[in-house]
């Protein structure tokens, strides 16, 4: 929780949500993307369509799910389709406006690594793997990346390229907003109270800063109230 009364996760979810329009069709994962898309749906974008890769289209969960396959997603969905159909007809069929991704590492071009740290054949850390990411990255119209900014995550060179950054339109971090400008992720805004020195120190490459650098608007009371009301399904 910052001195301003909101957490890093909350401002990340809010900034991502603000970028979703009414009617935007989102391919969401668990955690922050789910929080962001549900916030948008309950505030300015009630027609925002949430698709979880487990096959639920138009899910309207009351509480945030712990898994992309929670029963509530299926119960509240407009349609439930099989996984082959999801990837072939809906994602490859170019029905998705925004795909959310995260990763262990990102480079200056928005390429992501969620496969291994270290060598592929003798990894230091074997990560879960790409899952839906490779085709979300090339199949969704726009890709939003949500990732906390640290030198370990924002690296000069990925250990493994799991997905391509060609369609990454924005990277929302706990420190600010990066967007591709002239083929390279550039800091275009910082969150209130964050300065560019901090952001550059949290980046493993020589981060460009936009000349028209902006400051994000803090989460409103309404946004925070909705976010906190969503909560997360208790793990207990």
């Amino acid at each position: 929780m910052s001195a301003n009364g909101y957490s890093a996760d909350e401002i990340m979810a809010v900034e991502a949500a603000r970028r979703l329009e009414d009617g935007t069709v989102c391919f969401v994962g668990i955690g922050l993307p789910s929080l962001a898309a549900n916030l948008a749906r309950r505030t300015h974008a009630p027609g925002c369509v949430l698709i979880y890769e487990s096959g639920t289209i138009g899910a309207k969960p009351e509480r945030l799910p712990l898994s992309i396959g929670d029963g509530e997603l299926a119960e509240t969905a407009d349609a439930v389709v099989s996984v082959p159909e999801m990837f072939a007809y809906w994602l490859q069929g170019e029905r998705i406006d925004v795909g959310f991704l995260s990763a262990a590492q990102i480079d200056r071009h928005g390429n992501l690594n969620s496969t291994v740290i270290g060598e592929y054949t003798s990894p230091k850390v074997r990560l879960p793997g790409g899952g839906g990411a490779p085709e979300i990255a090339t199949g969704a119209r726009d890709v939003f990346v949500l990732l906390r900014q640290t030198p370990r995550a924002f690296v000069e060179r990925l250990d493994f390229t799991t997905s391509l950054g060609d369609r990454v339109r924005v990277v929302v971090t706990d420190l600010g907003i990066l967007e591709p400008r002239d083929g390279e992720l550039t800091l275009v805004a910082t969150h209130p109270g964050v300065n560019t020195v901090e952001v550059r120190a949290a980046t493993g490459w020589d981060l460009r800063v936009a000349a028209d650098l902006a400051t994000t608007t803090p989460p409103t009371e309404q946004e925070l109230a909705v976010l906190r009301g969503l909560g997360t399904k208790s793990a207990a």
Partner: protein
Amino acid sequence: MIAPLRDAIQRFVRDGDTVALEGFTHLIPHAAGHELIRQERRDLTLVRMTPDLVYDQLIGMGCARKLVFSWGGNPGVGSLHRLRDAVEHGWPRPLELEEHSHAGMAAAYAAGAANLPFGVLRGYRGGDLPARTRVARVTCPFTGEELAAVGAHRPDVGIVHAQQADRRGNVQLWGIAGVQKETVLAAKHAIATVEEVVDELTLVPGGVVLPHWVLDAVAVARGGAHPSYAHGYYDRDNAFYVVWDEISRDRERFQEWMRRHVLETQDVTQYHERLAAETAAA
């Protein structure tokens, strides 16, 4: 047709087989996986889009030689520690990986079900994965577009969990249906475990029906998806996924847990009795 799970596994799964126990976040066939462990199957090639706890258990108990997968984690929690230990340290034995994307795995199952040699998709473009897996490029004969080809999945045995069977062995599952229909139809032999047997199936909107003649065996395994869930029967045991993170971190604690809950129990009923007794004692 309707047989004890023990007999079905004994009859249809051999050491060295390629086995797919599917379930995409729902209806995960845990009871069948436990039976493979009890019967000490070895050198299996395990196929699954989202290997989670039951594959962590199979790998940690030394049943697997190879894993074909697209996302291997503990959903909403983190890593699979037994999978990591096998890949990072070769414990209890080295594990060969064939890694795909979800879209690639789904296309490979669909091709298998359709009796095609490969699936086609717009995928595996760029990045480092194509060089590390079994994928090829094909050219569309009509447009000249280059596409990815993935070899069809044709597992020796496909295993799924469902809500219901009727007395003849027709099976119905509903809710999130994942890739189970494709798994059954792609496999040389197919086994379904079910929550219950009913006199007659009532078709559920969006339900998937597997006629008895595409299945080799149907076995009753009440609670057989735990800690996953069975839509309409019981919820996901979210707390167990969190606890598994601790149990599976340590080799000895893992082995002790497996001994108590799987090796020392005879079936899914005893497994649940043991869990219930521990919860009551806690």
